[in-house]
């Protein structure tokens, strides 16, 4: 096996950003006819390394060989010329153009949509993609957009395919479909590199795993000969336990009662349709669903950020008295103890200010306290120090702008601040999106601690396996409707998958 010529050979590659070494002296091989999983914690340099292959960054040091020849990749165009194509985590598509137009965008030669369409159809037939070349991007679902991205790199003749967290936005069914396609490409003797944080995907899909830690190459293993435990230990550099606790709820009481809630978006589309449920104290209510089917609107409606058409949201006190949340402003609701830690797709878009440092971000919650016209910086300073210490936030200092922190650390800062106010209700969405396995488990632990402290947790998640391990009950949303509420301890994966695509889950 080792005497094959690698499709790509990275030799002694280093890349620095300012004083930070994103990659140092990485040696790695990528082979044809093989799916390689690239593993590593957040900030371990996986994406940077792949960006150097796809011509977005240029290495400070080291050499790259393609099929045994030394090459220079100074731009994405060079990468395409060498047959290297990358599907990024954030899609790079022009919304108002069609799939075919996006695919040929930036290519030399005369614009010939007809021919392009024919070629796109051929690629789709070969690998089993479902793409309508004439469909506009803004009409597409996330998984369709991703398909367009993959077809785009294949259209340009990519032989070496890099996918950066491709399954983060897909349903289980869509993920399976993608994997089938990737396996077909592998049979076609293409080299495939996939970056993912989900262990079961690594195990079911890849042939080989390569591990990066803090920018350094740790080693590689044949997937069949290893297991999740070992891979995680290698990533983190010490032993990690991979069990999510699920303590039994203690004395649960109704805390948030949602009745007949209907929400319309600004352009009149129904986002939530007649939603009914109750969230209880000391309990984690998981919310499952394909992305964009009402999760965001639901949380924002509870937090007072989303105008509601009809229905009621009641906040219930321990003694059974209740107050209507609809019509209250976000600040009032927050003061009542309802805390929203919403992690949007761009992570910094809401809840944190990227250009501000940790102290100033802590201040977002407390700056209005007191009657002085000046802000109090002392309390947020202490809080920032505490959060950094208790949650092991990796940061050069508390006066570093949060946008410089890696994803996991940004998340810890956000969650740390939210739970510092001792909320009664904790709303979290995609709390572990893009986080590596170690950081994810830290976050699960934090959430469990809140649950044990009697907080009613509403946890919007993406990874079904996690939802099923963590939640006491799971509410499945489908197109803005409640498709069903199931017990987390007895839930069946396939059943939830069906409920996500069809209300009630029946055929």
């Amino acid at each position, binding site marked *: 096996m080792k005497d094959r010529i690698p499709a790509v050979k990275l030799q002694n590659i280093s890349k620095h950003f300012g004083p930070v070494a994103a990659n140092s002296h990485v040696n790695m091989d990528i082979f044809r006819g093989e799916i390689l999983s690239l593993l590593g914690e957040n900030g371990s340099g996986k994406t940077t390394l792949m960006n150097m292959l796809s011509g977005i960054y240029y290495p400070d040091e080291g050499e790259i060989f393609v099929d045994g020849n030394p090459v220079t990749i100074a731009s994405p165009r*060079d990468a395409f010329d060498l047959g290297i194509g990358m599907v990024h985590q954030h899609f790079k598509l022009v919304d108002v153009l069609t799939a075919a137009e996006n695919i040929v965008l930036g290519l030399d030669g005369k614009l010939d949509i007809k021919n392009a369409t024919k070629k796109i159809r051929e690629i789709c037939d070969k690998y089993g993609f479902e793409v309508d070349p004439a469909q506009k991007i803004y009409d597409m679902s996330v998984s369709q957009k991703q398909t367009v991205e993959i077809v785009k790199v294949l259209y340009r003749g990519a032989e070496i395919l890099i996918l950066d967290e491709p399954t983060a936005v897909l349903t289980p069914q869509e993920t399976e479909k993608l994997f089938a396609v990737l396996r077909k490409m592998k049979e076609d003797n293409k080299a495939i590199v996939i970056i993912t944080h989900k262990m079961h995907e690594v195990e079911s899909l890849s042939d080989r795993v390569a591990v990066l830690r803090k920018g350094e190459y740790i080693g590689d293993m044949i997937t069949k000969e290893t297991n999740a435990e070992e891979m995680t230990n290698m990533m983190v550099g010490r032993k990690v336990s991979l069990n999510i606790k699920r303590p039994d709820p203690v004395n649960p009481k109704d805390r948030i009662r949602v009745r007949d809630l209907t929400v319309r978006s600004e352009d009149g589309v129904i986002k939530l349709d007649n939603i009914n449920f109750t969230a209880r104290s000391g309990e984690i209510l998981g919310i499952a669903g394909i992305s964009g089917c009402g999760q965001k609107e639901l949380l924002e409606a509870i937090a007072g950020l989303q105008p509601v058409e009809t229905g009621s949201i009641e906040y219930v006190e321990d003694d059974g008295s209740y107050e209507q949340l609809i019509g209250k402003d976000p600040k009032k609701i927050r003061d009542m103890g309802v805390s929203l830690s919403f992690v949007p797709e761009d992570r910094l878009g809401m809840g944190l*200010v990227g250009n501000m440092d940790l102290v100033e971000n802590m201040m*977002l919650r407390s700056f209005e306290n007191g009657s002085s016209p000046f802000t109090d910086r002392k309390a947020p300073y202490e809080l920032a120090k505490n959060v950094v210490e208790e949650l092991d936030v990796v940061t050069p200092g508390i006066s570093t702008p949060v946008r410089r922190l890696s994803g996991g650390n940004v998340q810890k800062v956000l969650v740390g601040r939210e739970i510092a106010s001792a909320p009664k209700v904790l709303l979290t969405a995609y709390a572990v999106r893009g986080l590596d396995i170690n950081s994810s488990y830290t976050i699960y632990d934090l959430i469990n601690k809140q649950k044990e402290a009697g907080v009613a947790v509403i946890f919007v998640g993406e990874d079904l396996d996690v939802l099923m391990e963590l939640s006491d009950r799971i509410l499945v949303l489908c197109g803005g409707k409640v498709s069903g509420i199931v017990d987390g301890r007895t839930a069946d994966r396939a059943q939830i998958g069906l409920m996500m695509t069809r209300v009630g889950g029946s055929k």
Partner: protein
Amino acid sequence: MMKTKKHEPLLHIVKRDSMSYKKAVLIRIAAIVAALVLCAIITMVVTGQNPISVYGTMGIGAFGTARKTWVTFQNVSILLLISLALTPAFKMRFWNIGGEGQVLMGGLAAAAVMLKLGDKIPNPLLIALMTLAAILAGGIWSVIPALFKAKWNTNETLSTLMMNYIATQLVAFFTVLWEMPKGSGKIGIINQNTNAGWLPNIGGEFIGSKYLLTIIVAALITAAMFIYLAFSKHGYEIAVVGESVNTARYVGIKVEKVIIRTVFLSGAICGIVGLLLVGGINHTLTTTMAGGQGFTAVMVSWLAKFNPIIMIFASLLIVFLSRGAGEVATNFSLNQSFSDILTGIILFFIIGCEFFIRYKITFRRGGHKK
């Protein structure tokens, strides 16, 4: 598929992560030196003059006599005040380029009070009313676009710009209405005999007393603005709204309220400038009173990265250049355009060096690094 090794590109542009304060200052100084050297070469080649004496003349133009120095500082104060006025709005990412119009409206309101109530009420009350009128007029002039922005998200750059022209036309209208003497097409010195409504000369009978008030007002507002932006709750809200409207809403900041409040403040300070120009410096009202400083201030505010303290030096630089360049033009009997060229070159270098502070250029391996 087979490829031969291509040449590595000659240089890469790499974004810097951060740069030490000292190094950034050094780069800026280097830029100014480079600009001066280039200006010297151009001066020599084009005019045959000795560049050193040209620079000397610039210095004399700005600081040659006590009076010149006072005027320079007065001009700096006015430009600084307008820059300070724009800054809170800019920090909120509200691009107020209507400083010109807001100054004019403040001046118009002050002039109206001076003309209509002068000698009818006690002077202190008159000045208080002028101040109030100027602040309100400037503030209201800026709040109109802010309201549209807050309610319907209209583009503030366009609307504040257009408000400038409306203000100019309004001032032109009142100039004709209040002209004296009749037929002159201008207002002339207001209350020339009684000096009613003229802002006081402070500090007694020395040469600078005429200019001191403006300078003191500028110093006070600079300090206040620095504290307001850096330490007050309002300043913090401005920064959050500027960075992310979503985050601001999420933590319960009333975004519309902050926009209107901040932009009113912006216009109000412009109004004060109008008051100083009409009541303290010119004692008359003209359509060209603001003299384009509403736009120059945009550059000053940006050059200083919205920091009120650095803004002092930025406005000093701009005023020095324009006063010095004027002196050069008359002394060496050069065309006024020549001094504009020098000013242009210096500004180009100062603004251009920001590129080197933000990015690093790495040359091909084996080459040297910059």
